[in-house]
């Protein structure tokens, strides 16, 4: 069964053009050298209305920063982000705040992302308060309705975050994100901290909600099997850049970029009769303070040649909808 599809059309809701986000920071590694971390580099992406776009890559690849920069939780260093045709980087603060109703985020850590001194009802209705939506009673009703949507009892609205388990907290986080009826949701490792059985519950919930409310979702995760399960299209990031982007079917079955291939080969299969020695990508992801010249992946790439250090590979559309940034493809 197709998980969604009815609501999907190809009008982009979010478009980024040459988006960059650099952090100037003191490096933790090797002394106190000051450096520029190029967390997101030249990302041009369009996210279609109603789709779920998976964003994968190792830690340090810039997935979270890209998600946050799209939402303007971090100001881009350069490049633009369009949301429904409006450039978020040039509009006023007030206009941006009004638009925030339509774009929400579920954060990674359910223990850090809920204010400990607010009860669940206040946490979920905070957005409604800020945007002055509804009367007090209407807001209370909305909170109860939302708790129902995410599978929690309405009585929970007077309780505090510490009274809940990780899975329940993540549901509260999702309820908060849905309170303002957003069109666009960034789920940043929203299920990574959860136990297997609870993770499956939350994955089903996200799929149901995206269908029911026609949500467009960016699903950030390092878990490739979960991303395959939930996404329509998948983008693979490495050191701040998008290496490959394609629909899920193509990306998982016919990956073209050597990095995507290596990532997929490293995923353990949940079946003991399909055991094989992992074909291993050597080394670690390089420091984003001092990324390799040319193609950032060349230092770990089994197919790298001399030319790879000279030019930054352009993202090319090798077949309709399948983009690869590699000169060897």
């Amino acid at each position, binding site marked *: 069964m197709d998980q969604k599809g009815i609501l999907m059309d190809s009008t982009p809701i979010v478009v980024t053009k040459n988006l960059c986000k650099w952090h100037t920071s003191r490096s933790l590694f090797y002394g106190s050298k000051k450096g520029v971390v190029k967390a997101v580099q030249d990302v041009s992406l369009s996210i279609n209305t109603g789709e779920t776009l998976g964003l994968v890559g190792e830690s340090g690849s810039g997935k979270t920063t890209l998600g946050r920069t799209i939402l303007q939780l971090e100001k881009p260093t350069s490049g633009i982000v369009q949301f429904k045709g409006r450039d978020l980087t040039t509009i006023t603060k007030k206009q941006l705040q009004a638009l925030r109703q339509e774009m929400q985020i579920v954060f990674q850590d359910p223990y850090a992302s809920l204010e400990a001194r607010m009860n669940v009802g206040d946490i979920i209705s905070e957005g409604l308060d800020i945007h002055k939506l509804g009367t007090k009673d209407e807001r209370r009703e909305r909170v109860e309705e939302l708790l129902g949507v995410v599978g929690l009892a309405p009585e929970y609205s007077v309780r505090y975050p510490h009274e809940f388990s990780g899975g329940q907290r993540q549901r509260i986080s999702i309820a908060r994100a849905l309170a303002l009826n957003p069109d666009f949701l960034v789920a940043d490792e929203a299920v990574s901290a959860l136990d*297997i*059985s609870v993770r*499956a519950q939350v*994955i089903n919930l996200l799929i149901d909600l995206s269908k029911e409310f026609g949500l467009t979702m960016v699903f950030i995760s390092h878990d490739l099997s979960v991303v395959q399960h939930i996404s329509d299209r998948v983008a693979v990031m490495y050191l701040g850049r998008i290496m490959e982007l394609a629909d899920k079917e193509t990306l998982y079955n016919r990956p073209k970029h050597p990095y995507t291939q290596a*990532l997929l080969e490293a995923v353990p299969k949940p079946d003991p009769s399909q055991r094989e020695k*992992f074909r291993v990508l050597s080394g670690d992801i390089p420091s984003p303070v001092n990324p390799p010249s040319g193609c950032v992946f060349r230092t770990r790439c089994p197919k790298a040649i001399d030319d790879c250090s000279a030019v930054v590979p352009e993202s090319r559309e090798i077949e309709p909808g399948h983009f690869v940034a590699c000169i060897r493809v």
Partner: protein
Amino acid sequence: MSSEILSTHRDDTEEAVLEIRDLRVSFEMDTGTVKAVNGANFNIGRGETVCVVGETGAGKSVTAFSVMRLLGAGGVSQRASLDGDIVFRPGDGKEYHILSLETQEMLAIRGRHISMIYQEPMNSLNPVYSCGDQIAEVLVYHDQKTKKEAMSAAEEILDLVGIPDIRRVLKSYPHELSGGMQQRVMIAMALVLHPTLLITDEPTTAIDVTIQAQILNLLQQIQQTSGTSILFITHDVSVVAQIADRVVVMYAGYTVEIGSVYDVFRNPLHPYTKGLLKSIPKQLKPGEKPERLRPIPGTVPNPAALPSGCPFHTRCDSADERCRESMPGIDTAETGQTVMCWRWQELQ
């Protein structure tokens, strides 16, 4: 009951490196008694990899800490009380009952015959000593090596675990290394004395898939060359499928199912094991659409307030009156799988 179960786990009980018999661990807290482990029973054979799988609060780590004797008297948690028996046989004909050893005797075993790789390398390495010093300490303590001898042994072991820039890593402090490198240093430290039993507690959980693949390859390769037995604790069912010889499924402090990895994955007997396997996304064939996941409803029970009867009955679709009222015993199937469930035969 335990002796009967044990004899069915493996025929060669005599050979088992580790036998855990009816282990129970509870913690006296201000808010009440937390029953972390309520009946753990399993063996580890020589050279065998046994994976303990379960969700948070299943008692996996507490079981491992008990084997290391890090709980209770002489351990870090004075509030723990332990019951049952843990028998360890290093292979020299001797037999140790770990829970009743004197502290001094345990010190001679811990780190030499049984060593452990802890969950978070960043929090488990000492931040104020260089990595070289920390590895060398094991040798200086157990083998009375000089610092110089110990350092050259440390170099060898770092080479074995695949660290490229050894001299630099020896002098580095933990924070100067990446997570994958820190994990390798932990592994090196655990392996430097060629232990009989290596315990690893979620060694790849905080690590990316590419580094996870490197670490799992490394552990398998070391096991093949040294014959070390591995007790591998994880919540990742796919990792279990790839590396385990046998699987121990824990739930609410009980070992609810034990069997060979092939039997457990092909024909899980306990409803909880079945639920776990249905909760993970299936591998998709080309053109195949994902099926809806079928998660286990609800959450793991609070170990301070376990339900009556079978601890899984609150989340089990097949639970009946008997399950709610009384605790199931442990049965053995034809395959040698053991299962703690009243209804496993009907549910086949």
